[in-house]
């Protein structure tokens, strides 16, 4: 079926506003990951979900960032009071399970620009 989808593809916002980024994983994939790709920083892990287990939030850069996954499927990454340093491409990936050998399939990303 379809791959990982993300929306919106581009988001321009003003400093201080809240934004929500959405990820639809591949159907049947129980693990879902968020990464951030900043200019010159490569890709950095933010958070991951595995089934109904508590998410691993160890990569979230500040308490302005949060994420949820409803019904074990769609996930939303929320950034409150956005700052210019939050400008980046936010990538979502899913895999069959969170086992380390499983391939992660990436979505097209959401490009966030904070003015």
């Amino acid at each position, binding site marked *: 079926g379809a*791959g990982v989808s993300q929306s919106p593809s581009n988001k321009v916002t003003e400093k201080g506003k809240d934004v929500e980024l959405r990820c639809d994983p591949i159907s049947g994939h129980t693990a879902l990951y968020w990464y951030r790709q900043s200019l010159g920083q490569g890709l950095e892990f933010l958070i991951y979900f595995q089934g109904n287990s508590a998410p*691993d939030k160890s990569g979230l850069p500040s308490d302005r960032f949060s994420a949820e996954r409803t019904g074990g499927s769609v996930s939303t990454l929320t950034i409150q009071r956005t700052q210019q340093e939050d400008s980046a491409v936010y990538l979502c990936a899913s895999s069959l399970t969170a086992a*380390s050998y499983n391939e992660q399939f990436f979505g097209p990303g959401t490009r966030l620009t904070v003015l």
Partner: protein
Amino acid sequence: AQSVSQHNHHVILSEAASLELGCNYSYGGTVNLFWYVQYPGQHLQLLLKYFSGDPLVKGIKGFEAEFIKSKFSFNLRKPSVQWSDTAEYFCAVNARGGNTGKLIFGQGTTLQVKP
């Protein structure tokens, strides 16, 4: 601290030239190793991966990589590049056997192949 280092940030080659992209990692434990590729305008996708066994692994499109444990390296190679190999390449690691596939990425190498 866990980290992945890619030595070359921007590589320019002519078609038919040989390619080697360096990747070194620092990780306290046994790892799985990956190379991902992002072609212009496309999603990040898996090129090849190493879990165990033969340290020389072959991936799609004629790419291969060799895991050298003593050097903590996983360099990517291709004997003869094509213009269509122009892309950004990312090396990544995760902890083998863990219940999370959380990936640590290098900063990426941009490869430009001139026709």
